């Protein structure tokens, strides 16, 4: 238990540091085990410092900065022990255009580094254009969901239709 958890901590921390500076184009971040000397009882603290800013409490980070930091941690866990499937439900919603591009760049890298299959729910046209394939969910009959496979042109029509 203890040895495995410590090894996992080290690996996730290494990945997290690198993913954070990739997503933020700089800055620094790391993980710490706090509240107990025994890793099985300890808490996981996240220290994050966007580029040019002072190290501050996580709650002072902006909505977009918190989303990116969380993505860096999730993918850090992934690279340590890749899951067969990852579903991200509108995690790009708080991101500005530049960060959406960086987020998609990271997704591309994750598909090269792991065998994980990704399902990305999004309303963002940029994210949509970076997907390898698209499925549309519609309610042609009100209240009844239907799945259709769409190509990119139809996707933008689908987005527009209510």
């Amino acid at each position: 238990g203890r040895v495995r958890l410590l090894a996992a901590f080290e690996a996730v921390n290494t990945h997290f540091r690198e993913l954070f500076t990739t997503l933020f184009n700089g800055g620094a971040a790391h993980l710490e085990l706090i509240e107990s000397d025994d890793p099985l009882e300890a808490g996981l603290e996240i220290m994050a410092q966007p580029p040019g800013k002072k190290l501050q409490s996580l709650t002072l980070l902006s909505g977009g900065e918190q989303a990116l930091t969380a993505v860096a941690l999730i993918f850090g866990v992934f690279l340590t022990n890749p899951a067969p499937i990852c579903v991200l439900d509108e995690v790009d919603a708080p991101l500005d255009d530049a960060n959406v591009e960086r987020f998609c760049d990271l997704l591309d890298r994750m598909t090269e580094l792991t065998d994980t299959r990704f399902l990305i729910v999004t309303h963002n046209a940029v994210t949509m254009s970076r997907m390898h394939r698209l499925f549309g969910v519609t309610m042609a009959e009100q209240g009844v969901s239907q799945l259709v496979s769409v190509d990119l042109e139809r996707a933008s029509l689908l987005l527009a239709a209510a």
Partner: protein
Amino acid sequence: MRFQRLRLAGFKSFVDATELRIEDGLTGVVGPNGCGKSNLLEAIRWVMGESSPKSLRGGGMEDVIFAGTQSRPSRDFSDVTLLLDNEGRRAPAQFNDSDQIEVTRRIERGLGSAYRINGKDVRQKDVQLLFADAATGAHSPALVSQGRIGAIIAAKPQERRAMLEEAA
């Protein structure tokens, strides 16, 4: 163990039998508000052994059964199946003899849930172990529900340790 297909019928707004192919790389899921995108993720969590209705946005577990619309009657049961590729033979021994693993969960109003793996009745625990061994499961940090991306940051340090345990 690779995820290949998700099949659902009578699950939330997916009243008609539906199949989602899960393929390599990035699959985008798009559509208007309220059309059923988040319900798909909940179907995946549910079939992997989710036991808390609240994390499926419901009051009781029967809230996952199609409740009807103004033009369709409600259903009495709901079925979700995950089709997994097992060519790499990495499943637990009792399921490891075939190329594919089919995990099904079915709930019937008033009767509760039942699980099956390749046609054999199994317990919820068996399904949860099958997925835990494959570094996934109903509470995998890799399944991020809508609006929950910030929750990882807002969580207490003790709660975050659970993510490490998944990585171990």
